[in-house]
């Protein structure tokens, strides 16, 4: 796999069993994402966006096919190794409930650095710099419930980029935000992508969000129907 690839999948399938029915949530998807891309995955509800992101992010296991992230074949890893890979190479932003309720904004943002064993001074330095950059300074000591939805998502972004991962996966990061806040969040993501070269893959329903992506992958029934 060439160095400039952040993600490569090869005919991956994920089948869910519900009752006697089996649903192929991801049904033979092969694609590549280059480093530095700012890609959107779009598709109607139930088309497999979340499932695909979870598979790429090593949160879930494929039933068929292979996945590489930053040159590592994650489909060949065990549970513990997958956790380590997530810790070092992948950042995650979910639609909601991203933060640890009992930790402050700052503690949340440095959580992965902490898992990595980075020393406290360095953690603080990095996270404070990011907070300043994405408009969170002054909110360091707030608990998640004392932050707005947009602020919470920014803390999640701060946590994701603090370790400078190869890839950030975001599952409908703006879905719970009003459009102005959502647009501002995308500004932040775009800026990080442009300035730091961080690769983003995010899913969305929202046409206004899709417009901002440099690449748009459309899913229907677990297959790619459009990619440009």
């Amino acid at each position, binding site marked *: 796999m060439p160095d400039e690839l952040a993600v490569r999948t090869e005919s991956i399938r994920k089948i869910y069993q519900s009752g006697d029915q089996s649903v192929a949530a991801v049904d033979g998807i092969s694609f590549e994402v280059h480093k530095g891309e700012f890609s959107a995955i779009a598709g109607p509800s139930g088309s497999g966006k979340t499932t695909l992101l979870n598979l790429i992010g090593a949160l879930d296991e494929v039933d068929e096919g292979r996945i590489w992230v930053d040159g590592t074949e994650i489909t060949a890893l065990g549970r513990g190794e997958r956790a380590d890979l997530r810790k070092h190479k992948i950042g995650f932003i979910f639609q909601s409930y*991203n933060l640890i309720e009992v930790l402050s904004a700052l503690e949340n943002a440095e959580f992965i650095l902490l898992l990595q064993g980075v020393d406290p001074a360095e953690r603080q330095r990095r996270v404070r710099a990011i907070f300043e950059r994405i408009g969170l300074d002054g909110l360091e000591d707030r608990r998640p419930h004392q932050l707005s939805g947009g602020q919470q998502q920014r803390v999640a972004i701060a946590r994701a980029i603090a370790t400078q991962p190869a890839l950030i996966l975001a599952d409908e990061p703006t879905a719970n935000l009003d459009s102005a806040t959502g647009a501002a969040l995308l500004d932040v993501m775009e800026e990080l992508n442009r300035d730091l070269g961080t690769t983003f893959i995010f899913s969305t329903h929202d046409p206004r969000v899709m417009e901002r992506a440099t690449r748009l992958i459309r899913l229907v029934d677990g297959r790619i129907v459009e990619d440009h």
Partner: protein
Amino acid sequence: MDSVLLRIGWRNLWRNPRRTAITALAIAVGMIMLAFVLSLMAGMKRDLINQGTQLMLGQVQIHKRDYRPDRSIFDTVPLDGRALADQLLDRDDIFGAAPRVSAFGLVSSGDKSLGAEIVGMDRDAESQVTTLGRKLEAGDLPGRGERTIAVGRSLANTLGVSPGSELILLTQAADGSLGNDLYTVSGIFRTGLEMVDGGMVVLDLGVAQELLALEAGRIHEIALRSTSPARAMEVAAAIEQSLGVEDISVAPWQELAPQLAGWVAMSDSWMWIMYLIVFVLAAISVLNTMLMAVFERLREFGVMAAVGMQPRTIITMVLAEVISLALVSLLVATILGAPLVHWITNSGIDLSATTDGISMSGTVVDPVIRGAWAPAEFAVAAGLLVVCAALAGLYPATRAARTDPARLTRGEIR
């Protein structure tokens, strides 16, 4: 990393302060109940054994092997009994050794007669072993060489005697003759046990031996007091071994008074049942709290795992929380429970208003039930409760740790 886990665990504990407070209180009440019951049981057991052994029994007795249960006057200990008693006092684990002779006979005053057990004892040696000498209502036990007799309160009433009165004893002596003599009443004892107060008279050991035609060295039993009743069995075994005389048996109180031993064993089993009940209640309470605490936080665990936390760390985090909970409970239990245990060990529960003198299988029971400190037992109980709490937390935690992060982020568990 570990410190942040502790921080998360501790803060999570106060996420739902009411639930935490209720659980901590439930565990604390459990611990207090345990401490209370442990103390009460230990105290009752101590009193039961003390009262059962102190009056006459002693903690260990030495006999000729065939002496019990027939108690024939011919079956004397096949060694010089007085010398043996003196020699046993040299042992570190023996505080008192009282040689005795005993026979059944007729006690008469005027035209009234009664059957009674005649016991010959050395007053000084006896005072180191039993408390009969402290149960005198009037007068004293016969002193060494005195041709006097002490009798129980009800026997004195029946015969109509008081200190200074004269009594005639009639018994079979070891030489085949009829022992028969006149004694002045020296004292009257009241133990609360009808068997003793109405059926026993006490002579000086030497005087009794004379009556029974036994030489000075021939005695029927030696009652011993060792360091603690709990050690009676090992002490008895050690003495029997060191004597090495096949025909001598050395028996602990458990063997001499099986009914008393039965009561003690029963109080032990009650203690274990209480233990179990309290444990199960505390464990259910923690399990319930931890199930709720883990299940309402699945998404959060999912996010933590998604960003790279090892799944097994969930277990560490939950355990940190459970142990914090247990320690808070322990603190509450100590603060609330200490005065209670203090009260039960010092003042005790006075039952004398409801009963007057309870006698239970040959034992006079003190109407005030007092506890005893049982710090070791309590430490074990508290420690086990903490372990129990940890186990209760382990169940939901391992389930969460085994679940795929993807599933956790949906709020589901395997």
